[in-house]
């Protein structure tokens, strides 16, 4: 029996008491202050709160099964080529438009860049057999062709986010003729590292077991994994911070918006998940030019267009080691690695990054706007829909 095991019951009780005292003592401060805070908090929580997310207007211009394409049009179009954004299949693309003063989409629109954004939707059990190839050579390709045809242009700018960036890398290597410039953000391409806990855990993860147990991988299960990356901060400190600031309406509104986004988690299609874990986390095939989709080998050397690769120095989900080898493996001459002093989500939503991240992409794209487009646009007729996004939800009390 260890020394720790011999500690008395009283000591354990005292320890737990100390823990709660610490947490609540920190949140409370002095009794008078506490009463004032509680009163203010009551006022804030019972008042109408503006917690709507993704409120920038858009139009749904294309639908294929559960996947839709959103079109954001600026008041004045200043870029010749639109930007096509592919988000991860984990969580939702609404993160790029979390609130009006912290919206990557809005920054793009304000500079005259037209945006098309894929919404992967919410997979149901019928989507469990969809592979990575179905997503890359299927949905992505259909939608990029749709945009090329609609604008009568041979190429689009492509931007990928996290896992969506990995899909963009695969797509660009397989269809380089359709991409004018590629922007990858917090995109894992190298999976052979111990820098991130996800990489460590995934090595001993049996995706077959999870797929057999669940079919599609539940978003909530993924959320549990993400919370366990740093339980002290994400499950305790974050909510202590909330209690400390619950009297501040702006803080509460921002906090609730983020909570809405974080826990809005679609399930992951079973086969795509299985493939992603096995081919990437286990075998690290992509960076070695050994991965194939639909029988075609993905050769990163075929990526020859300008590439901007942005990642966060303090990213605990996709650490720098997952991102910083990518540009060395591609065929492009015009390529740039940018490591920002932020984390995985902060890169898109922190107030500091609003001045660095999106403006940097805009400058980089603008500098490359005039370069040639060697391939003719497609002429095929595609199935298009037009559906205006409903008006943003009204302010609601939480």
């Amino acid at each position, binding site marked *: *029996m260890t020394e*720790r*095991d*011999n*500690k*008395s*019951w*009283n*000591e*354990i009780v*005292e*320890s*737990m008491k*100390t*823990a709660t*005292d*610490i*947490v609540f*003592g*920190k949140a*409370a*401060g002095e009794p008078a202050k506490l009463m004032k805070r509680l009163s203010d908090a009551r006022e804030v929580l019972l008042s109408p709160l503006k917690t709507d997310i993704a409120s920038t207007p858009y139009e749904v211009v294309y639908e294929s099964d559960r996947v839709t394409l959103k079109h954001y049009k600026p008041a004045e179009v200043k870029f010749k080529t639109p930007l096509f954004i592919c988000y991860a299949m984990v969580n939702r693309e609404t993160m790029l438009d979390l609130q009006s003063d912290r919206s990557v989409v809005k920054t793009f629109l304000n500079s005259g860049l037209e945006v098309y954004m894929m919404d992967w939707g919410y997979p149901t*059990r*019928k989507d*469990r*057999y*969809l592979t990575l190839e*179905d997503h890359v050579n*299927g949905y992505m390709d259909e939608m990029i062709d749709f945009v090329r045809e609609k604008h009568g242009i041979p190429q689009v700018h492509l931007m990928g986010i996290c896992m969506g960036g990995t899909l963009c890398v695969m797509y660009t290597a397989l269809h380089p003729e359709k991409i004018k410039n590629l922007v990858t953000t917090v995109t894992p391409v190298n999976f052979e590292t*111990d820098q991130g*806990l996800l990489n*460590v*855990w995934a*090595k*001993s*993860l*049996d995706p077959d*077991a*999870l797929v*057999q*147990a*669940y*079919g599609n991988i539940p978003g909530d299960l993924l959320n549990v994994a993400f919370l*366990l*990356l*740093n*339980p*002290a*901060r994400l499950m*305790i*400190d974050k909510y*202590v911070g909330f209690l400390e600031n619950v009297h501040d309406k702006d803080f509460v509104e921002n906090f609730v918006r983020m909570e809405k986004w974080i826990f809005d988690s679609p399930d992951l299609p079973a086969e795509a998940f299985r493939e992603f874990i096995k081919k990437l986390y286990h075998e690290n095939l992509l960076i070695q030019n050994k991965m194939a989709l639909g029988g075609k080998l993905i050769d990163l050397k075929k990526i020859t267009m300008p590439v901007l690769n942005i990642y966060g120095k303090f990213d605990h989900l996709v650490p720098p080691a997952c991102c910083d080898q990518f540009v060395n493996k591609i065929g492009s001459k015009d390529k740039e690695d940018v490591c920002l002093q932020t984390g995985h989500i902060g890169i898109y939503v922190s107030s500091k990054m609003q001045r660095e991240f999106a403006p940097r992409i805009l400058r980089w794209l603008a500098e490359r706007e005039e370069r040639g487009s060697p391939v003719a646009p497609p002429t*095929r007729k595609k199935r298009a829909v037009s559906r205006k996004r409903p008006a943003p939800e009204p302010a609601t009390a939480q």
Partner: protein
Amino acid sequence: MGQEKESEQGNSLYSAWFKASKDYWDTSAKMLSESPLGKTPLDQGAFTEQMNTWQEFMKAMGSPEVSGPGKNLSVEIFTKYMESVWPFLSAPADGEGKAEKAEDLRAMSKRMAKSWFELFDNELRKVLNIPQLGLTRYYQEHVARAIEEYNDFQITMANFVNLLTEPLIETTEKVREQVKTAREGGEELVKDAKEQYKLWINKLEEAYLELLKSPEYTSALSEVLKALRDYKVSRQQLLIDLFQDLPVPTHKDMDELYKELYYLKKRVKELEKRGKKND
């Protein structure tokens, strides 16, 4: 000889416990029947009879005449349980002695869990794996398997949760000790609750990071996911058995359908592409 002696001790302990339980419930039932709520349909006689029957049954299960893997099951269960909790229960009800004599709750809960796991492995699992016979043997097997997998899942999950709560308890103890030692040495390590919290949360974060990247954690995680898979698959099989005669499609039915639909759609898309190329 040794086994017989153990069995005798177990039986004696078991009888003492059963008598104490019976007395307690007898008294409670009596008190309740005499209270203003006594008009409730509580029949003390019937209750006592039930208890006696249960005692006889348990005795019979534990008697040497009963053969098979579960022959001493009730005694085993009770003995294991009492071995684990006795030191805790036997501590004085109050006063300083409690802290000194009563054992660590965590150690006790670990011992209880360990006893249960051992018992399950050595006794119950064997019972669940007794060969099933007759027309419904497959269905019986599915039920037994679901119970077995459920227990295995509970066991691995309990270990996993234990592992996850360790940094919390450890860090809290460490910080408390650190602050206490500093105070005894005349040093004020933290000025207020905020500073103490900051110290605690930083240490907790470090402790978790250390645990979460350890092979011990990844191995526990793999085990719990595997156990979850096995349990869910066996439960699914049980549900398929239950629903097969009802007009309700099971996951198996739907998955087969979805698979066909998936391949059909893929085929249609390919044909569409080919058609357009030919145009």
